[in-house]
């Protein structure tokens, strides 16, 4: 039924969805671009006219710009490292036949269903609180001085919280990939004299490489935008101000919409560079 008639009918019927999505994306994008060229201070005079690329230069020359880029990279990199390494190990573990496999798998996936705000608050108040937190009790039990997690090891704490949320996602994708590995390949390698570690390195890991790339790609896009976890724990202090958080502060705390919008445009460019880069890797992997 791929006639000219049915094709134009299909286009007509898809049009509302496409127009809605385009509008959803284009309106905020245009407004961000529009404000980024203006000096716009809502509580201090409102729209003060066009300023050209002033906001762009001010955003990158500000003393908090490069530290925030570095923080973003550390958090994204740290979370990726933890989720991929632990994800591979957990996936191998969950692939082993055991009693109650179904329930265990659901339990492993559970953290993914908890809202970021909630899980960050749970970690902050129940685990990392230096007086009442479980970790503080544990430290005291061994006679050690409780760690003030969110101020002394702030970045590590946030990496931990975010990694806990994203580990189920990585595990799930890697588990399905491991399940598709032909067991005869492992047996062939075993007969060929490969010890367990070599079988992992030569057979399992290459088989997982595509799934790992996909995990890294999807997580990077989402991790560049983490906000709630920082907002409810450190509020951007103690060196946990990421690029996203810096934009938020410029717009809402400094009430400088123009400067924040310029930051937003940088973030769009950065995300697109990452996406392009990763799409190429995935494309290359899919060819093989």
């Amino acid at each position, binding site marked *: 039924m791929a006639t000219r008639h049915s094709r134009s009918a299909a286009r007509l019927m898809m049009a509302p969805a496409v127009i809605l999505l385009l509008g959803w994306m284009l309106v905020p994008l245009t407004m961000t671009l529009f404000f980024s060229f203006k000096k716009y201070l809502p509580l201090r005079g409102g729209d003060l006219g066009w300023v050209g690329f002033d906001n762009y230069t001010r955003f990158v020359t500000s003393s908090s710009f490069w530290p925030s880029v570095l923080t973003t990279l550390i958090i994204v990199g740290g979370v990726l490292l933890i989720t991929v390494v632990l994800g591979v190990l957990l996936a191998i573990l969950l692939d082993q036949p055991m009693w109650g496999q179904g329930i265990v798998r659901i339990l492993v996936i559970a953290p993914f269903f908890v809202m970021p705000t909630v899980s960050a608050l749970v970690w902050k108040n129940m685990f990392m609180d230096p007086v009442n937190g479980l970790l503080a009790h544990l430290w005291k039990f061994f006679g050690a001085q409780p760690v003030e997690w969110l101020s002394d090891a702030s970045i590590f704490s946030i990496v931990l919280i975010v990694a806990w949320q994203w580990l189920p996602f990585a595990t799930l994708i890697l588990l399905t990939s491991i399940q598709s590995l*032909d067991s*005869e*390949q492992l*047996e*062939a*390698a*075993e*007969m*060929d*004299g*490969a*010890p367990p570690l*070599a079988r992992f390195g*030569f*057979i399992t890991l*290459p*088989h997982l*490489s595509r799934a790992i790339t996909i995990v890294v790609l999807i997580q990077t896009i989402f991790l560049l935008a983490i906000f709630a976890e920082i907002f409810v724990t450190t509020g951007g202090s103690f060196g946990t101000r990421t690029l996203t958080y810096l934009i938020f502060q410029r717009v809402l705390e400094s009430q400088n919409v123009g400067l924040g919008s310029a930051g937003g445009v940088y973030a769009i460019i950065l995300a697109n560079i990452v996406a392009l880069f990763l799409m190429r890797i995935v494309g290359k992997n899919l060819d*093989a």
Partner: protein
Amino acid sequence: MGRIVLDKVKKIFGDITVIPPLDLEINDGEFVVFVGPSGCGKSTLLRLIAGLEDITSGHVEIDGVNATDVPPAKRRLAMVFQSYALYPHMSVRKNIAFPLRMAGLEKAEQDRKVEAAASVLNLTDYLDRRPGQLSGGQRQRVAIGRAIVREPAAFLFDEPLSNLDAALRGNMRLEITELHQTLKTTMVYVTHDQVEAMTMADKIVVLNEGRIEQVGSPLDLYRHPANLFVAGFIGSPRMNLIEGAEATRRDAATIGVRPEHMTLSTEAGDWTGTVGVAEHLGSDTFVHVQLDDVGPVTARASGEISLGHGDRVHLTPDPAQIYRFDAAGSAL
């Protein structure tokens, strides 16, 4: 050297006894085929020899050494899997070199052995391709190449030709047989196809429900089947098994006549019947006849015969070639 002895080998999965205690000797340099219907335990038996499954009781001896608790890699056996089990992310060269690399051989030595194996198997032009870029027959040869380079005591083949089309299967059958004649290494070959068993084997082991029904050379099994199961399994088309009055008349519970041991005539004969289907293969014609008193049988006739549905024919079995079986199914 490659002499494998199975001594009271038994395998139980859960509550199911897949292989009841079984004894078997495979001599050095022999081409042994395990044949039987699906689920008869032939692949399990091969995996027990390879060490990929643990033996419940009994023991396996390879070259006089008890190998029951020896890990698969140390048994000096090479296996070719049904799915070929090639490593998809490695080139053909790396696939074939993998066992050598695992054994810690020098790079130059690895290359030399890979090149040698590749030239034997006509793979030289494909060494730098990935398995995904090869045809079924080429993948099969890579899998065999990976087995050859290890210079094993014995090769184990697990239904290696079942994923190939008919023409290629015929070619690979020849190639494997020729390879056996060149290498003179013990080969154990699992198949459900009795044609492969008959054409390739020095010794056929017919398995049914984990038990060995009969062991012998192909023609031995064809000429002297020990029981009904072997009689029905070996030979193509299968032997006609006839019960009832005709069998009782010859003091047997069942008699068997092969299609090729009956004379077909349109004028006169012992049995009379109506042709159902005549399969013209060119060289032969297989005629399916519904006999009036005896039941349905298949007979082989010359390729030139012209018979069709509904024709009346007469069949005469060769009296010297009638097999007799007792009520328990054993040959008399």
